[in-house]
């Protein structure tokens, strides 16, 4: 690429980035503003007069944020591993095998995406209570443990893998389960990473369900904590902003870590021609 091209590209990258990052600058700036500063002044002041980390400290003092963090992390880890495992298992026959009811099962799965959660929440809660899952980490995982969306996504990925890879393994006497684990899963790593991030985002930001299923404050997840922050201090926006920033950071880290998997050329050289 020529120099002009590179400069142009970065210019576009930066302009687009400013649209995406803009509102966050306000969030960060509010989180960094000290108590002596009016956060509602006009015209808006983006740079804090004297930046301080005090608000973050106060967040940790006010609420057991660290334990909310750990709860969220535990629930997210559980949900992500469950979802990756179960979705890719279920997606395999849906993408690659022929059996009675395949079309029907697939349609039912897709159709489950189309009812709003708000409607399913009360019956789901009743079921969770019946199974004794209320107020437990397992209960928090339920709506994310196996998602139709995940199955859909994995199915799409499996369908893109050349059949011969699977057939040749099959001729070698390799079992379906072994093919799934040793041949297919390594090849859909980008999609697995994608699904992992999506699931993580879903669990990490889930608010409605934890709110209903969790009573015990020691089992609170981050969004519940941030929500509490928003209400508890007569809407001290500085604390709310600090809490929001704290809840976003882990997800950014997860994304930065996993994104290299999206970009790996996993299928390159798998099949020629």
């Amino acid at each position, binding site marked *: 690429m020529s120099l002009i091209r590179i400069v142009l590209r970065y210019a576009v990258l930066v302009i687009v980035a400013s649209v995406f990052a803009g509102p966050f600058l306000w969030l960060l700036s509010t989180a960094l503003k000290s108590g002596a500063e009016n956060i509602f002044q*006009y015209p808006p002041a983006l740079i804090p007069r004297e930046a301080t980390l005090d608000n973050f400290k106060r967040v940790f003092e006010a609420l057991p944020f660290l334990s909310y963090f750990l709860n969220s992390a535990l629930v997210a880890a559980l949900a992500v591993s469950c979802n990756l495992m179960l979705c890719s298992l279920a997606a395999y026959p849906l993408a690659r095998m022929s059996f009675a009811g395949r079309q029907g099962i697939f349609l039912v799965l897709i159709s489950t995406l189309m009812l709003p959660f708000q409607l399913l929440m009360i019956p789901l*809660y009743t079921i969770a209570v019946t199974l004794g899952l209320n107020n437990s980490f397992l209960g928090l995982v339920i709506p994310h443990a196996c998602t139709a969306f995940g199955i859909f996504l994995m199915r799409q990925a499996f369908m893109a893998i050349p059949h011969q890879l699977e057939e040749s393994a099959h001729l070698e006497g390799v079992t379906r389960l072994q093919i799934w684990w040793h041949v297919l899963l390594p090849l859909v790593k980008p999609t697995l990473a994608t699904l992992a991030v999506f699931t993580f985002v879903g669990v990490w930001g889930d608010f409605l369900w934890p*709110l209903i299923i969790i009573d015990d404050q020691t089992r609170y997840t981050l969004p519940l904590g941030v929500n509490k922050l928003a*209400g508890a201090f007569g809407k001290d926006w500085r604390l709310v902003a600090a809490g929001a920033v704290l809840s976003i950071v882990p997800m950014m880290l997860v994304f930065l870590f996993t994104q290299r998997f999206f970009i790996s050329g996993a299928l390159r050289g798998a099949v020629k021609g």
Partner: protein
Amino acid sequence: MLWQAHDERSDGDVDIVEIEFWTMQLSPILDGYINSSITAFEQSHPHVNIKWVDVAWADMERKLLSSVAAGTAPDVANLNPQFASKLAEFNALEDPTRYLGAETTALYHAGVWRSNQLNGRYFGIPWYLSTSVAIYNTSIFDEANVPFPATLEDIIEIGGIIREKAGKYTYFPSFDGGEPMENYVLMGGDIRNDLPAYGLTDASVEKLLRYYAGLYESGAVPPSVLIEGHQKAVDLFQSGELAMLLIGMQMLHTIRLNAPELVADLVVRPHPNADQGRANIAAMNLVVPTQTQHPQEAFAFIVFITSPERQTEMARHVPIIPSTPSSLEDRFFDITDPRDNFEIARAHSIEQIRGGAVLLPPLTNYSRLRTAFIQHTQRAMLAEVSVEEGAKNLIDDWRTISRMSGASPN
């Protein structure tokens, strides 16, 4: 579950009763107070174990509703009267008069106590109260060179001048909660459960709609009143874009926190219409859902935590007004520093509460009524319909709803 019951019985006399207690947004500020209250109660009632759950203000309805639907309702819950009355409508709440004697019920603010009934049944016990006072940003009034409004209607003209001279908005009449209907009563109207169309009259509804239309037309209120609630009012006021707030005294703390440099310009006055003998009291209730297995213990706990002593103690921790008038005799509520806005606001609040009432009674089909009321008020405000037509439509809707619920005797 079976074996558990068996276990308890074999243990003989030690039957531990667990009472689940839901509050609205009291944690973590009141952690110390609530926990010590619970400990004190448990000491005097060794067979009761209180499990405290704190829920954010905005989430209480969803959470309580789900738990009622799934049969896991708490034993004691802290609700506002409107939501409580919705539950009461379906007989989901215990009647406290079945468990409490007259000497206990007499402890509470009589007007507030009376307002906790629907169709002749009581459904809640008042806990703590608040009322709106007026907070003015004097610098804006000075800039426009206008006096503070003496009545709600005055805001129209004064707001127009402020808009013109200072380029700011004056007032933010929020549409969340029951504010428009409370204003209707404040302006002389009446809302009653036992009349057709709940007692609305053309003249007074037109008066209210004219008021809202006037506010909007003169530029006294920002367009965002259509989509946002009182939180927005506070934010606007804090940013110096709004000249006045009609709001509970506790908001002074928030303003102090978020916009410290504003404090010097603030003046606190009674609510503009309060001196006409009508001040609205906002009450927080404690209720006992009928799903509870232990109503006796639940009410015992409520009586304990709403006792005059506990409420006085509570007021020392957070800016509330106790629902037990005897608490207000405490020296704590006296003004010690006449320049302290908050103490002035509290004095005004106590004054208003002593002579005030819950202006909006519990209504059957409350949320439908509220939705219709707001819809028509906003239409009139935006001049999409004439004030007369808006009033007619509003009353028609209320009449339909009242017939639907069979609440009125016609």
